[in-house]
């Protein structure tokens, strides 16, 4: 028994160390830093209580970044979810070349975001393919390109994000669809239910757990959008996001570690609340069914 205990300790040591050194310790340090005016390059610092948090709520750059982040989340999540579900339904049966189509749809989501961002920066520039496309459908494209215009920059990045992620969520939906027994559909068909009725009465309700998973994962990921902003616009033209703000404030020029930590914790709380919201929304409905 005793030997087992020490073996167990040795076995869990890697996680224990990682947990304490790279998660708990930084979390606590960051929390405390949020209450100081600590700046990395300056030796002395002071406890300032809630001053950082108060300042953040009147910091127009931070508020704008938060606003853009919310636009990003609320704009991409519904679109991604609907599209990926649609694509999953589209390929969820046997047909020639199914494997190839599925693989092709999935490919963008395993490519590096940096690569995608670079390609789309080229596609979005003045005289690029997207400008060409919009001219074909009769829409006016911004004169300087989509990324150099405050009214189109953020939405262009959002569209790119949707494009990239639909394949990934499509796969998850496919797995969820597979787990729905065929007998249910058989029974529905016998009772005269059409395809649309089957979709809303059988498919969607039974996909709730998968939907919840996707919504939570996507929310956590989308709230932290950074790479695209860094590569494509550096936050200019109204595209700064929360994490980009944290990066700019804490890791460039002024190195305001304390101030940025407070901002990071505000974002943390927002993400936690948002995820909790999904759980509440989707769990409760399940009980009603």
């Amino acid at each position, binding site marked *: 028994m005793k030997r087992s*205990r020490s*073996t*167990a300790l040795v*076995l*869990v040591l*890697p*996680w*224990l160390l*990682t*947990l304490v050194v*790279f998660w708990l*310790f*930084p*979390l606590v*340090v*960051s929390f405390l*830093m949020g209450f100081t005016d600590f700046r*990395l390059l300056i030796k002395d610092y002071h406890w300032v209580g809630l001053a950082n948090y108060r300042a953040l709520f009147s910091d127009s750059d931070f508020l704008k970044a938060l606003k853009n982040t919310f636009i990003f989340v609320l704009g991409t999540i519904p679109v991604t979810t609907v599209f990926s579900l649609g*694509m999953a339904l*589209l390929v969820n049966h046997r047909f020639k070349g199914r494997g190839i189509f599925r693989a*092709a*749809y999935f*490919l*963008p989501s*395993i*490519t*590096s*975001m*940096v*690569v995608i961002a*670079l*390609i*789309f920066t*080229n*596609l979005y520039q003045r005289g690029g*393919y997207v400008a060409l496309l919009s001219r074909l459908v009769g829409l006016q494209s911004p004169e300087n390109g989509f990324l150099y215009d405050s009214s189109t920059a953020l939405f262009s990045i959002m569209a790119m994000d949707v*494009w990239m992620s639909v394949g990934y969520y499509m*796969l*998850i939906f*496919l*797995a*969820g669809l597979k*787990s729905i027994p065929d007998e249910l559909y058989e029974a529905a068909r016998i009772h005269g239910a059409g395809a649309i009725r089957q979709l809303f009465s059988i498919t969607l309700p039974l996909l709730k*757990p998968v939907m919840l998973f*996707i919504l939570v994962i996507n929310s*956590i990921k989308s709230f932290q959008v*950074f*790479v695209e902003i*860094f*590569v494509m616009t550096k936050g200019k033209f109204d595209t700064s996001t*929360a994490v980009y703000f*944290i*990066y700019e404030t804490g*890791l460039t020029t002024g190195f305001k*570690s304390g101030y*940025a*930590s407070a901002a*990071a*914790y505000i*974002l943390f709380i927002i993400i936690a609340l948002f995820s909790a919201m999904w759980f509440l929304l989707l769990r409760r409905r399940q009980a009603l069914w």
Partner: protein
Amino acid sequence: MVKGWVFSALKYLLLIGLLAVMVFPLVWMFRVSLMSAGGSIDMKQIFNVDFTLTNYRDLFAAHNMGRYLFNSLFVGVTVTVGNILFCFMVAYALARYRYLCNKLLFVSVILVLMIPAHILIIPLYVLMVKSGIYDTYWALILPWLVNPIGIFLVKQYIESIPPSMEEAARLDGAGELRILLRIVMPLCKPALAVLAIQVFFTNWNSFLFPYILTSSDNVRTLPVGLALYQGYQAIDWQHLMAGSAIAVVPILILFIIMQRQIVSGITTGAIKQ
């Protein structure tokens, strides 16, 4: 009858349309990477047949691409191997040993999974600068050696294996280490393969932490190098796309070989939740 035919044609139209949309940007990337450098890109050039490999050659010869590639590979493989070993160890302990702390530890794994990574940006940066491992390979490797998703994945898998073989070996007098490595680990190969692919892919593509935790060219990984290429005077779109292609090709190859594991890794996690 006719309705079925029309329906099928529409379906294929939609499928192919989607395929074009999903695949075009990557095709464009490859096309631009093969165009001659030093001129502005004309979109019509996508139909040209001329191509050149000079952009690729330039990147390796004058822009440190070889180093970036090596760094990404080195860090990727190290982190993957580390995860295979350590996640397995921890997962085994959590699956097979029954102690109160184990339950707590497992809860800690789940909790950490829910914590958004951005919260680590400032503290990891400050801590690494202060401790001196900022801008070294350690910074790229140490924090990512034990991934909670990996622990979760492998633990689930181990729990589905009956412990009878381990017990038999224990009765025979075999040591714990022997049991772990010779008996259980081989049985876990499917889960470990999925884990390896997940970890390698995530690591290969990752940008945020490799960017903020390093600043020198010689420890830079491929995505970071690519993103920073934008500031170089000698790098135009042709070179940039060539660099992007270099970042994509290994992923493509791995994807073709290990498609099943990749898909299974993504879907298993989702369904179990």
